[in-house]
């Protein structure tokens, strides 16, 4: 393999590896997500340095150029990573949905009281003897009034 492509792949893998470690150090990337990146960068680094291994793999998968072996595995890694993100997004969406539901459940609004609707600013206009502390009390009073 051309020395230039070796320099390119070794350099590229080293840069990715250092970037990932730096991102984890600055807490911009969770350790959990760094696994795939570190694993792949280390693998690329390994086969770029250990050239005979790359040649054997190239022969084993029936590729002609060792460079295409590198590209193939690089692409495979990208696909796995994208799939991983789709899974994460699905799980995030599910969590978001249950949060949205909880927010909705926290503030269920009681029906408007037709009697109170006639007066604007009805909360203040109610008699002081029976101030509704919240919507539930108002609803209870309405039900009791009806019965």
């Amino acid at each position, binding site marked *: 393999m051309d020395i230039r492509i070796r320099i390119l792949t070794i350099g590229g893998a080293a840069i990715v590896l250092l970037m990932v470690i730096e991102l984890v150090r600055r807490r911009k990337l969770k350790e959990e997500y760094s696994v795939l990146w570190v694993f792949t960068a280390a693998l690329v680094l390994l086969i770029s340095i250990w050239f005979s291994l790359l040649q054997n793999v190239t022969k084993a998968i029936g590729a002609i150029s060792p460079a295409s072996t590198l590209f193939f595995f690089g692409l495979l890694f990208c696909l796995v990573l994208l799939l991983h993100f789709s899974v994460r997004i699905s799980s995030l969406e599910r969590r978001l*949905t249950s949060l*949205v*539901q909880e*927010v*909705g459940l926290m*503030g*269920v*609004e009681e*029906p408007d009281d037709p009697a109170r*609707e006639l007066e604007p600013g009805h909360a203040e206009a109610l008699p002081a003897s029976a101030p509704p502390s919240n919507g539930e009390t108002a609803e209870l009073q309405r039900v009791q009034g009806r019965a």
Partner: protein
Amino acid sequence: MARTEPAWRKLVSNCLLVIPAYNEAANVASVIADVRTSLPGFDVLVIDDGSADATAANARRAGARVLRLPVNSGYGVALQTGYKYAVRNGYATVAQMDADGQHLAGFFPELLSHIDSGEADIVIGSRFLDGDGHYQPSLARKIGMGIFSRMASRIMKQHVSDPTSGYQVMRIDVARFFCSDVYPADYPDADILILLHRSGFRVAEVGVQMKMPDGKSMHSGHRSLYYVYKMFLSILVTMLRPATPQERG
């Protein structure tokens, strides 16, 4: 109240009617008015699925309790929120209908009677069983619904004519089951009926009449191709998962 029968009267007192609504300010009040005249004992909970219009205000004014979702989350999520509310507030049965005016509340007593007699855990109001042509879906949708209801009928070994119907009554056990991850965010369909069947719940169908919706229905956002794809995939994975009969209280 000509329809008053003791059999379902008891159930109504402990039944929550869930009405998911998205931008239905024009129809929601008349739907609630229909419920209040034909079934005065019903607790009505409108789930406002992040509407941009006055859906919530109109529903409250018409006499319904309103649960507002802060962002538009889809028909299935809105329904599931209603199930969660029913489970947490100790209701015994949950009824549901759409807010677009196509459903008539007057058929609920008949559905409830099937729950009350103990012959079913969930009763679905079918648009097709009575066969008088009140409901005319588009051709593509008709074909899709036909295929999936036939698949569901085959798997469940019972006739299912209208798996997409939003007009249903269920026991709280079914609602509790729906509160988990099993429930789809978009549109519950034949896949959910198959899941219910495989989980040991009994499904029944009752013919009901429906009006053509006046406005844009929540269901019209269906992309036909995606719908067909999603249903096939969903039924396939439902069948691939192990059948797990649910404990019933």
